[in-house]
């Protein structure tokens, strides 16, 4: 039985895998564990329900792939884990042997909130490194069909907009707002987005929150299996409350040699505009 070494982190958790009938595999990515099981006529995808985020530490940094697993392991799963497992079955006339497990960015924008407000004086420009949780996609390689995708960590929902009437439904995450790349911990289930903010306005910019349009970003991987997205540039012009967002083409300058492994979920629109940075009005009183 060939089982990849659990401690060998040189191999990424994503990539194609061939599974024989009546065998399965296990992917441990960050706080999430995902099992795949193949029979002649169905694919079964099990994953630990993300309903209780307290059970797992969101920053848990794991990346382990084990396959093939015998059917007994999969059959024993529901009892063994003692936790809520979500099972989905996909039936086919004849299942394909090859599946591909892929990372993907979130399906909604992510609102990042620095732990402490960051002030950017007039005329300054900074680069912030933000990391966002990835989704795990299970694809059939030959027919290029998406079986299922699960978030590696279920981020909390949030609302981003000028009022409770208009705005956008987003994910929320907190960030340490790191300015140096060396300080950024490397996590297998998160992708890094370089965010360049330029404050061309005459007053200081208080960065209380920032909305990253991750559904318009592509995902890149470096030869050392780090995941990056395109650079997002935000420019705040004089007499403007929000900022103009621009998504730079190609991999970020921090990871020039990176290859694209996932296209953006949604085509990027010209002139994305955001009314970002500050708290959302005082409309939420009693």
């Amino acid at each position, binding site marked *: 039985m060939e089982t990849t070494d659990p401690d060998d982190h040189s191999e990424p958790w994503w990539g194609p895998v061939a599974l024989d009938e009546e065998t399965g595999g296990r992917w441990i990515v960050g706080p999430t564990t995902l099992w795949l099981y193949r029979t002649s006529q169905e694919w079964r995808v099990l994953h630990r329900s*993300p309903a209780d*985020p*307290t059970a797992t530490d969101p920053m848990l940094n794991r990346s382990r792939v084990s396959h093939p697993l015998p059917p007994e392991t999969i059959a024993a799963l529901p009892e063994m884990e003692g936790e809520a497992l979500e099972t989905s079955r996909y039936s086919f006339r004849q299942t394909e042997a090859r599946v591909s497990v892929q990372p993907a960015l979130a399906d909604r924008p992510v*609102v990042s*909130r620095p732990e402490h407000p960051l002030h950017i004086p007039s005329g300054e420009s900074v680069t912030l490194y933000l990391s966002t949780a990835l989704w795990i996609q299970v694809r059939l390689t030959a027919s290029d069909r998406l079986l299922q995708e699960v978030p590696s960590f*279920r*981020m*909390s*929902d*949030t*609302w*981003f907009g000028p009022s*409770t*009437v*208009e*705005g956008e*439904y987003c994910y*929320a995450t907190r960030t340490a707002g790191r300015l140096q790349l060396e300080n950024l911990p490397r996590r297998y289930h998160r992708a890094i987005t370089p965010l360049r903010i330029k404050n061309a306005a005459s007053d200081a910019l208080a960065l209380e*929150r920032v909305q990253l349009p991750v559904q318009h970003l592509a995902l890149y991987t470096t030869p050392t299996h780090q995941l990056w997205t395109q650079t997002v540039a935000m420019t705040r012009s004089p007499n403007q409350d929000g900022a103009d967002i621009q998504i730079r083409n190609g991999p970020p300058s921090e990871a020039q040699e990176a290859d694209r492994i996932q296209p953006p979920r949604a085509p990027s629109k010209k002139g994305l505009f955001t009314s970002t940075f500050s708290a*959302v009005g005082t*409309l*939420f*009183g*009693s």
Partner: protein
Amino acid sequence: MEPWWTLFVDYITSPRALDVLQAAIKIGIGVVLGRLAGNGLARLFADADAQRAMIIRRASLYGIAGLFTASALMELGFDLGVLLGAAGILTVAIGFASQTSASNVISGLFLLGERPFAVGDIIRVSGTTGEVLSIDLLSVKLRTFDNLFVRIPNETMIKSEVTNLRRFPIRRVDLQVGVAYKEDLRQVREVLLEVADRNPLCLEEPPPLILFQGYGDSAINHQFSVWAKTENFLDLRNSIPVEIKEAFDEHGIEIPFPHRTLYTGSETAPFPVQSTSQGPGPTPEPPDDAGEARQD
């Protein structure tokens, strides 16, 4: 005497009958064309909007069928001017006779113009909550969540308070939370905010709100308000109370029920309390068994 059927044959072979037939066919064509045009226009201009599609369909059906009917009547020799004049007088008579229907029709037009809700919205009208199925000439049809069909006259709709539950994208869940007087309110606050933070359906922004409501009879009452996406409203409303109870149990915070203290005034001695059970258990053991146990 001629048999009746020769009369009938005479009649249906006369040119007049042919005209009537022609007029009937014309009206039929008008109805069919109106329907087709309505469907086409609705597909063209109101792909996703069910309400606009309904209005377009009706307008084109009534308009085109009406034109064809008028043309058919003219062909039959009716003078439309006279007809319209007669209709004017008739309207007054009918108006008096059918005040309710007329007021419903007018109210319906206002409802369509004002658009307080659209087909597919969830609305609450005087205690009835349901999904709007259609907005018609005389009434609005609702489907309640226990799958009942409710017809509400347009006039009632115009006059009464209507709440649209789906108009805005996010909603707030308000919960009343009472804690015992002995609890540390700061800790209660922290625990509640942590519960909101842990629940992924609970929006981080707008932030959860804790409002002091008052010193109650047996509890200190707070209102705990959290926001959810309108679609997730029910899920959050059902999951948050469970999580609050769990968190309170974990931190030893008591959710009290009404207490009653008996007090007989400062002059009297305390109530004499006598314990009737020997053991610590709530139910005393039967005397026979207890006796045996002592003998052992």
